[in-house]
């Protein structure tokens, strides 16, 4: 599922005055898979306090991951199961590939040039573990 498919369509536009062509797109979009429930303010503030238990990993998480995964964004929120479930179904190997190569807004190597594969595995596992 692409990011765009996860996004609600036409929040900029009022639905009652859509032109016919645009309305058709909206109707088609309505048939798409339901996106995960977005994080609440409580989920976002809770993510603020979550850190890996291992100090070295916690330091890496803070400097490399938290800017996007510790806030409300299109990136899956740390500890928020619903946001991570669609990603986890892709399998760890796919997630590692996306991390190394970058995907959508996420930069290649996830802002961690010194990270090895095991670091990435541990960080993904930490972030995707429900709080």
């Amino acid at each position, binding site marked *: 599922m692409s*990011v*765009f498919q996860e*996004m*609600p*369509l*036409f*929040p*900029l*536009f*009022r639905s009652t*005055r*859509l*032109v016919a*062509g*645009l309305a058709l*797109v909206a109707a088609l*979009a*309505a048939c*798409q*898979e*339901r*996106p995960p429930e*977005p994080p609440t*303010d409580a989920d*976002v*503030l809770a993510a*603020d306090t979550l850190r890996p238990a291992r100090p070295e990993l916690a*330091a890496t998480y*803070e*400097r*490399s991951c*938290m*800017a*996007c995964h510790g*806030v*409300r*964004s*299109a*990136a899956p929120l740390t500890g928020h199961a619903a946001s991570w479930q669609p990603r986890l179904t892709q399998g760890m190997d796919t997630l590692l590939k996306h991390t190394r190569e*970058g995907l*959508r*807004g996420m*930069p*290649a*190597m996830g*802002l*961690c*040039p*010194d*990270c*090895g594969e095991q670091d990435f595995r541990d960080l993904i596992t930490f972030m995707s573990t429900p709080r």
Partner: protein
Amino acid sequence: MTRQPPSTSRRQLLTGTAALALFDALRGGTLAQLVLPGAQAQASTPSAQRRWQNWSGLQQATPANWATPASEAELQQLLRSTKGEVRPAGSGHSFTALVPTHATLVSLDRLSNVVGIDKAAMTVTAQAGMRIGALARALDAQGLALRNQPDVDVQTLAGAISTGTHGTGAQLPALHDDVIALRLVKVDGEVVEVHADQDPQLMAAARVSLGSLGFITQVTMRVVPAFNLARHVWLQPVDSLINEAPKLAARHRHFEFYVLPHTGYAAGIRHDVHTGGDLMLPKPGDEDVLGDLKMLRDWLGRFPKLRRWAAQQAIDPNMTEEARHRSFRLLSSVRPTRFNETEWHLPRERALTCLKEVVAKLESRNEVFFPLEFRFIRRDEAWLSPFHDRDCCSIAVHAAADEAWAYLIDDFTPIFRAHQGRPHWGKLHRLGQADLAKMYPRWADFQAVRRRFDPQGRLLNAHLRQVFDQA
């Protein structure tokens, strides 16, 4: 599928000698030309030839060595044992080729801690590989904040101040203006401490220096007491918002707006200090709006009049977005959709006239859908600051990362230059020494400092040789 409440928002709106020898052998010997025997620091780097790329993917490089020293001492050792070209990498958020090198690339990501906070002096000292967002969180825990923040906060401190990174606010200068001291490791490994009060000239050179003087390892910055902000985002016809912009900029701590091309509308964003207790985290609708604008382009792009009509029928001018929370949670955001960008800084008195010409040019292209961003920045005195000696407004034009981008330079450079613009150092431009020297009155002074700090030009890559005419 579910729909969120209507909202409009910001830009989305829319590696001992043995180890080195082994690496060198595996790669065919290129490193032998670059590294002297006895190097120890690079043993700590995890890999040799890995590809670096900037955030948008436009700039790429496969350095012979990509080092990530864990301390200033390791960096010194690395530099003393390395020959040839060497460049620093921050977070990869520059669109210009400031970073790429085939030789030695150095990331300071492991230098990412707060060194100390002086609440009496209201300063923080941090390692320069620390990201803006991480510093902001650490400051908030101490009841402190940065005076302003840029649109995204993943940049390293060194990268941000070295490129003139800024936020918006008519009375607020760019980040580098709050730097009062820094430590810099020259390419020969010597550490230089620069203090604004002891050597203001050297500090004026070092604040915005494109990584051409050395590696900034530590920064001391002024901070302010932590504060909350209230955000209000609204839609308004473009001409009307342009007319009100100076007044809005004067009235609000932070004001900026985005022109939504081919719609006739712009989105205004203001942030003011909020003292109430009714806090509410932002729920940015930027990406949603960007998706809307792209879809409108995809469907009706070939029919610009119909496109505009459809947009005006569909846009609800009464839609707003509100948020109230800590400044660091509101001023910067995460950008999920990659883009390439050019941004120029205009003298404030000419910026709105320039904007109208830029919008007209932008809308002469049917493929355009990314919003244009207009911001306000206070003057400062750094020699290579785009805001040197003049209050500015910035105009930023974007293109999706998977679409054509050359027009960002070709179409708009003449317009920006006609209005005495200076290009953002980190955003797409093709200017070289001949043009740039005329834009910066202290250009020659900076070059003298640069040659003193790096007489062999080892910190210059292809892009910087163009910028400094050292080809």
